[in-house]
Each structure stands twice: as structure tokens, then as C-alpha cells.
């Protein structure tokens, strides 16, 4: 272990001791340790397993010092769901939404990614009692250029008969099915222009709202990443062809000359500015400064002090002030944009697949790694061409796909968005044209 690692472990262990001191003064000890552990793990100074063990140990130690508290905390933390391999290569992207209406709900395919390291389908699924669309509370949106249901093996599909069906929306078929939506996804097939077909392997899902799940399922078979399109076929429910945007060339990061803890501080300040619950900024910054993982002269430290003091006006950097001012902006933008960017920051890598916006807000799908701590190893933020700043907050993560929620909502007048990916030592920017 290096010197900074030893200093971080020492700091965390002493924080545990302080937390157990009945004469201590100050904030809630668990929150204090959480902030320090989060920041030090994100900065690469502390081993994430150690920080998780210490937190679990502190919770149990506190529990056995008061009148029996139920349920007793676990001694060992469960493995966090973010653990997974770093992205290996760029991926081509096709974006939906493609809605398959089922008698018991709906499957809305949001994104399909294809690359040499595999492919993934991200979809929203309502449960059998839900009866709600992929986007709660409104009909499935129709975005992007009109597309027609696919014909066989890449031929244009015949014109649809009967009442018009919006592009990307496949009407319920005549057959009724009692099969669950998960089983329905098992039946989804992807087909590329060469005729190669792939089914979906077992994946994972996270709740995305009442009766709504977000699902990521890996493609089982190899698909041609240079195919101009991919067909989504759900037997008995129809087929839809999505154009594929080829992956962009990998983007190498540039050194940002900030200290390793800067990414965590930037994200924490951004969360505070966006009005989100934030891990104790002050505790994290104190820990980073104590172990030398944050330069005391870094303006971010001053910004952190401002947000820790809840003073979000005077002295706050204009970019974060723009987020404060637009906190309550409504989610009016609707659309899906393929990104297909791959960023190599040396120690960390990030894959930005697609950007989606709808009634439930805007989010970016992608992955980054190595993701061994509760917080992702990179910090994402964005600026639009109207000088609005956005925080991209990790909202969900599945096997090798995660979603970052944009805060505040997208400005409807914005025509482009620059996403900044910041790692411990390097950073890079990815442009997304919104119009």
C-alpha cells in the first residue's frame, strides 16, 4: 500500500474511533464516516472493500452499545452492484424507444449497443399489473425520423395496413399471452444486416418507478457492429428496424492537473447545487485534504466550503449557480440521441452510449470502470450551448450498463451538449448534437 493509502486507512480508522467516543461533538458519526469513505474511495486513496468493512463495523459497534436495536446491522457489507469490468471497446449504438405493447404491460427498448466486447439491450419494462408505458403517465413518445417496421432480411417492410401505427410503436398482436415481460424479453431477437441473429442472455433490472423496471440484457450472439441497422423482433408482436450509429473513434483523455479527489468534490458540489441529497461534502473534503488527495489551493475546495455552508449564492461558481437557478426547470424535451463514445482516461474508461429525454427526465446510458467503489470512478458533468451546466448523477447500474440522470432538466433551446468526463488524473469531452 502506498503512503496515501496508509494515510487514508489511518484517517478512516481514527474517524471510527472518534465516532465511538461518547464525548465527541459534531455531526452524526456514521454520516461523517460515510462522507470520508466515499471521497477517499472515489479518489483511489482508500480500498473500497476496507471502507465498506469499516462502515459495516461502525454500524454494528454502535448498535451493540445501545439498547438492542433491530435489525442488527450486518458485519460484512453486501457486494455493491456497481462492481463490473471496465468498458473494453467502443460500441455502435441504435436508439429507440421501440415500444412493444403487451396485454399485461409494455416493453420499451431504449438502446441497443454493439461492439467487439458484446452487445447490450437496455429496456424499460412494466410489470404485469402495470399497464403503463415505458414512460410513466403518458403514451410512448415518437421521436426521431420516421422509421418503418422492418421487412424480412433487410428489405423494406410493406406498408402497414389498417389504422396508422406510430413509428417505433408496435401494436398488440392478436395473440394474447400470459407470459411475463421478462419472458417476453427472452423472446426478443436482434438481427443485423448480414442476417445474424442474437437472443438476449440473462441480465438484471432495477426499479425505475412505480410498476416500472429498467432492464439491461446482454446480446448472446455476435452481431456485426458495422451493420447499418439492427432489427428488433418480438415474435407475435412485430419487428422494428433501428439505424445504427457507428462508434466514434476512442477518445484519449488529457491531463487535468487536478488532485485525485477533485472529481469527487466536483460531483459533490454539483449534487448540492442541483438540490440532491449529498454525501457530507465537508467530511469528504476534510478527509481528502488530510491525506493529501486534494490540493488545498484547488478552487473546488472553496466551492465545497460554500455548499457545505448551504450558502449557494455568493461566491458560487457561475456554472453551479446556473444549476441552482434552473433546479425546478420542467422536463419538456423529448428525444433520444445515439452517442457511441469511448473515453480512455488511463486509469479509468467510460463508454457513453446514448442520451434520452422524456417526461421522467433526461438520462445518459453508458458504463465506466473499474467501478469498485460505491461512487463511479469518473465524474460526469455537461454544458450546453446556452451556457447551462448539468450534473450527471449516477441513477442506476446493471451488469455493464449504468444510467446517469441529468440535473437540472435539459434546456429546450439547447442545440448541443458537451459532456465532460473527469477521472482522477485525466479528463475528456464528448459533444452531442441535440438537433
Amino acid at each position, binding site marked *: 500500500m502506498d503512503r496515501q493509502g496508509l494515510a487514508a*486507512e489511518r484517517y478512516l*480508522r481514527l474517524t*471510527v474511533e472518534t465516532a*465511538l467516543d461518547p*464525548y465527541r461533538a459534531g455531526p452524526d458519526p456514521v454520516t461523517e464516516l460515510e462522507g470520508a469513505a466515499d471521497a477517499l474511495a472515489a479518489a483511489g486513496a482508500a480500498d473500497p472493500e476496507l471502507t465498506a468493512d469499516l462502515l459495516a*463495523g461502525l454500524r*454494528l459497534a454502535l448498535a451493540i*452499545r*445501545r439498547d438492542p436495536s433491530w435489525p442488527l446491522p450486518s*458485519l460484512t457489507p453486501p457486494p455493491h452492484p456497481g462492481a463490473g469490468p471496465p468498458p473494453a471497446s467502443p460500441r455502435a449504438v441504435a436508439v429507440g424507444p421501440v415500444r412493444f405493447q403487451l396485454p399485461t404491460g409494455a416493453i420499451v427498448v431504449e438502446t441497443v449497443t454493439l461492439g467487439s466486447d458484446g452487445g447490450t439491450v437496455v429496456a424499460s419494462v412494466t410489470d404485469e399489473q402495470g399497464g403503463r408505458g415505458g414512460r410513466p403517465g403518458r403514451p410512448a413518445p415518437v421521436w426521431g425520423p420516421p422509421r418503418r417496421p422492418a421487412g424480412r432480411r433487410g428489405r423494406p417492410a410493406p406498408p402497414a395496413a389498417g389504422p396508422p401505427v406510430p413509428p417505433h410503436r408496435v401494436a398488440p398482436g392478436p395473440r394474447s399471452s400470459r407470459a411475463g415481460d421478462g419472458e417476453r424479453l427472452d423472446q426478443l431477437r436482434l438481427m443485423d444486416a448480414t442476417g445474424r441473429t442474437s437472443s438476449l442472455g440473462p441480465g438484471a433490472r432495477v426499479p425505475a418507478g412505480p410498476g416500472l423496471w429498467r432492464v439491461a440484457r446482454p446480446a448472446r450472439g455476435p452481431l456485426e457492429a458495422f451493420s447499418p441497422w439492427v432489427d428488433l423482433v418480438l415474435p407475435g408482436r412485430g419487428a422494428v428496424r433501428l439505424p445504427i450509429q457507428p462508434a466514434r473513434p476512442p477518445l484519449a483523455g488529457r491531463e487535468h492537473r487536478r488532485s485525485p479527489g477533485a472529481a469527487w468534490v466536483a460531483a459533490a458540489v454539483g449534487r448540492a447545487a442541483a438540490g440532491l441529497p449529498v454525501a457530507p461534502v465537508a467530511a469528504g473534503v476534510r478527509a481528502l485534504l488530510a491525506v493529501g488527495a486534494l490540493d488545498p489551493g484547488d478552487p473546488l475546495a472553496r466551492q465545497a466550503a460554500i455548499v457545505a455552508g448551504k450558502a449557494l449564492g455568493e461566491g458560487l461558481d457561475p456554472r453551479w449557480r446556473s444549476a441552482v437557478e434552473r433546479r425546478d426547470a420542467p422536463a419538456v424535451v423529448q428525444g433520444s440521441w445515439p452517442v457511441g463514445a469511448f473515453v480512455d482516461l488511463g486509469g479509468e474508461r467510460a463508454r457513453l452510449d446514448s442520451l434520452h429525454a422524456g417526461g421522467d427526465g433526461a438520462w445518459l446510458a453508458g458504463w465506466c470502470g473499474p467501478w469498485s467503489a460505491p461512487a463511479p470512478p469518473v465524474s460526469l458533468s455537461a454544458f450546453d450551448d446556452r451556457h447551462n451546466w448539468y450534473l450527471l448523477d449516477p441513477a442506476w447500474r446493471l451488469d455493464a450498463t449504468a444510467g446517469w440522470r441529468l440535473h437540472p432538466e435539459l434546456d429546450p433551446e439547447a442545440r448541443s451538449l458537451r459532456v465532460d468526463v473527469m477521472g482522477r488524473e485525466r479528463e475528456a469531452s464528448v459533444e452531442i448534437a441535440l438537433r
Partner: protein
Amino acid sequence: MTPRWHLLVGPAEGEARCGPNRHRLRWVAGELVAADHGGDDGGAVLAQLGGDEPECFALVRRWHDHAADQRVLLLGSRHPGDALVITAQLLDRLRADLDHRAPRSCRERYALLSLLALGPQLERRLQQEVAAHLAATNQLVCLEAATAGRLVPVLRRWGGGRPWEISIGEPGVDGPARVAVGPHWLAEVWGSYLAVVAGHLVLDVLDVDLDRARVWAVSSPGRQPRALTVVGPAPWRAVLDAGEGP
């Protein structure tokens, strides 16, 4: 070779529920024995044959398993007023959840809490075991934090409520608020209730001879440490000045 801290403490005893009875476990010179089972190792044999292992034997086994477990120091009591509330009902509840499908973390939690519930004497001996292991294996980061957690309450009583900077190193008091103790302080000094004797803060043990120990101690903040001879076991008392220390 007998660890020095074994010479500084006497036998210790605790109780645990073993079947329908409460049985004693006794620690003597580094060994934990199931006192109410005599020399009978039938329980262990029974366990090997697939029968239920008596809780006393299970505790002895767990003691050996966790004698180097850092989590003992994280969970354990820091000072006599820092009582752990691990009731028999709590242990029963945790034990009821254990079956062959229970995750390892649940089994370890039960094992550690059942050891810490043996009573303050045995709990302190277990902490000494772990601390001595950390000192012997040079795991100083964990040891330093555990030492600080136990030295701060002592310093608060001895030197007032000022903030202290505590480290492991050459024993001494540097200025009014910086204290360094040796790596064996937790096992030898704190564990043996030797932290403060006759108003002196004990920083290290120099040597032990039967019921006497020569310690390196300081009378008040800002003063130079000196050697002191104490007679024990606890409650220790100072008997004579031994001149300058090493």
C-alpha cells in the same frame, strides 16, 4: 516464550449459556478452557461425529479463530464505562438464524458477538490477544487507531479534556498535547489496567518480574517520563522510583 502481557494479568473468567446451563470459561496464561467441562473432550468428539457441539467448546474454537481478528478491536469496549449490550436474547435470535445456508457474514457476526458477550474480563483478554498479534505483525495502522480509541479516555481523565495527538513510536509526551506510546501499549498497559498508576500515565512496560513491573511513565503533561516500579496485578500501585529510564 510467554508473551509479556500474559505475565501482567491474572486468570480471567466469563460465563456463557451451554445447553440448559450457564457454564464458566476460564482464561489462564493464554489458554481459554471450558472450566465446567473438566478435562472432558467428549463434546469435541461428539461434534466431529456430527452431533451438536457444546457451546463452551464452540466458544473455545471461536476464540482461536478470532484471536487475530481486527474487528474485535473495532467492536470491543474502549473503557470500563463503554459497556456492550449483547444480551442472551440477541444471541439466541442471531443463532436461530444460523443454518447451513446462512451467509458467512452472519456466522462471523454471531461468532464475534458471542465472544464479546463472555463478559468484560474475557472480552479484554481477547482484545489483548488481537492487539499483541497486530504489534507482532507490525500492523500499525489498525493498532494505532485502536490504541487512540482507548488512550483518549485515559488522557481525558489524566490530563484534561484537551485534544491529544496520539501516535505509536518512541514512548514519550511531547509538549502539552502529543503522546507517543509503544506498539504493545494496548496489550500490555491498557489491557492490564496499567494506564494510570499513582497519577502517572504509563507509556510502556520496560520489564516484568513476578508481580512487579518496571514501566515508563509521566507524572503530568509537559513533564519528562521516568521509570517507575509498580506492583500488581490490578489495582497496581507504585512502590519506588527506579531512576532514569532507558
